């Protein structure tokens, strides 16, 4: 266990961030806050990947003539590339989420979940 906190502390931090995001998604009642929670959660996963790209003593993954093809001289480029895609996905999801929120607000005049549900019910009954 102690190994986890000394040797892999960045991983522990990403887990904490992930839980913060999930807390926002599950517990908060405002739809916008839920969306922000989702964003935090996705960022945590992005950081999880980036953390594993790091190598001690290595530099940015851009070719340098002084370093040549030495593998241990550059950090791992794969997680960076993958996460570029994941960031775009997260931006796009947020955009669609906001569009849905605009529609919800126009229909019900609020973004608080209990009130929205209440207004949905009352309209169905009438």
């Amino acid at each position, binding site marked *: 266990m102690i190994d986890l906190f000394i040797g892999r502390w960045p991983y522990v931090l990403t887990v904490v961030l992930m839980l913060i995001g*999930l807390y926002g*998604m599950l517990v908060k009642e405002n*739809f916008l806050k*839920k*969306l922000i929670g*989702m964003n935090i*959660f*996705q960022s945590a*996963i992005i950081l*999880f*990947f980036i953390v*594993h790209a790091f190598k001690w003593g290595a530099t940015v993954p851009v070719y340098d003539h002084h370093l040549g093809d030495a593998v241990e001289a550059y950090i791992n480029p*794969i*997680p960076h590339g*993958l996460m570029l*895609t*994941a960031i775009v*996905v997260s931006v*796009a*999801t947020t955009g*669609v*989420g906001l*569009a*849905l*929120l605009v*529609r*919800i607000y126009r*229909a*019900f005049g609020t973004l608080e979940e209990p009130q*929205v*549900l209440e207004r*949905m019910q009352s*309209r169905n009954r009438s």
Partner: protein
Amino acid sequence: MIESTLPIGVPLLLLGGAIVTVGAGLVRRSAAWPITLVVLVLSALVSVRQLLVVLAEGPLTHRLGGWPPPIGIEFAVDGLSAFVTSVVVVIALLVLLYARDAVRRETPEEEVPFFALLQVLLLGLTGMVLTGDLFNLYVFFEISSLAGYALVGLGSREAPVSAFRYLLLGSLGASFYLMGVGYLYVLTGSLNMADVASILPGLIGNPTLTIAMTMMVAGLSLKMALFPLHGWLPDAYTYASSTATAVIAPIMTKVSAYVLIRVLFFVCDPALRATIPVGSTVAWLAATGIVVGSVMAIAQSDVKRMLAYSSVAQVAYIGVGIGLGTPFALIGATLHILSHATMKSCLFLVTGSVQLQTGRRSLHSYEGLGRVMPWTFAGFTLAALAMIGIPPTAGFFSKWYLVLGGINAGEWPIVLIVVASSLLTAGYFFRLMEKIYANPSPSLKANDPGMLARISIMALGAGVLVLGVANFWFVGEVLQPALPATLRLTGM
């Protein structure tokens, strides 16, 4: 050269189709439907040709960018993926026939983005099926999800709320899947499915691997709406527009089920699977889901919502098959992907037609509709009989194989649940049938929908019968060769 481009044929057609639809839609809005039709017909031809080639000559691969795996992304088609692709495209094509009039009446101003997103959705789904790369699968997963959220969000007033919840849960599921892929990548250094599969046996015993697989299964189950992660489904299907429901309900959850099969049975080898207790958990949760879904379906008075809950139950059948993991159970699961896709799209098309014609949704208001819309409800009745599992419809055979699989695995309680649930299904469909074929009130004014919609409903209804009758050929020729060698039936 033509053969080698087959695996990317369908996704590229749909990608190009979406671009052309939007481009042409800027000039002429009414061009959207014909373009989509052409693209889907071509995709259907390509996917069927691909299936035939794969069955005759074995798996095909296409290396994008010319890079060999695991350096580049590879599209790999075997019997199973070719089969699922064909199911997706053909069902979507039939629903599209119905969609022309429905979309014009339900959402007249959004025709262009609607059909573009429909193609984007199918692009994402076929991409998920055909890709041989775990991360590429995530990208297509998100493409299909985004299109799905938007299509579900367009509907009644409540639709955006259910779509937003779907978005939160769907992103959560995708994130879990991505996290699982992340663990696998960190442990193996590769993202190609075949490559990862060859590295994983050396890692048996690593606790992280178990958690990685669990997270991937959890993420995919969320997307598949497997009990108890089905919370988003009933609302999403109920409030969405009829075309969106008829496309999304039969296809989307099935593709996630396919990915689950791919991950559990193709990426994991049997020794590894034995160390991960995912299978039996999935089977038991799914069995519970069958009961819960069916009981909830009986309790509904809105027909669309009833069908949505019945989807929860039906997807759980597939979950049972995957969880049991015996050869018969897997055949049952894959066959049920096809049969449920056919019958559910038929049922949702009929409820959509009724809603368009009369605005009726509740169970009681269906009284007598069968007399005034005879063709439509002939298709509905066939599909409903298949849902219950009456021979010789398709639904009977998939359940039959599931039961055989359960007996093989010695899971008697699950066998009992699968058999007993047919009674529950019969319960809610017979109640509906009784209303449908009752005498109509004189004020009822409705008739069969237009030619195109009628063709699609009838084709799907007939498909249920044909699939049932032809299922032995189908299982022997298509599904058997598609499964991994260790999971094939011997002596069939």
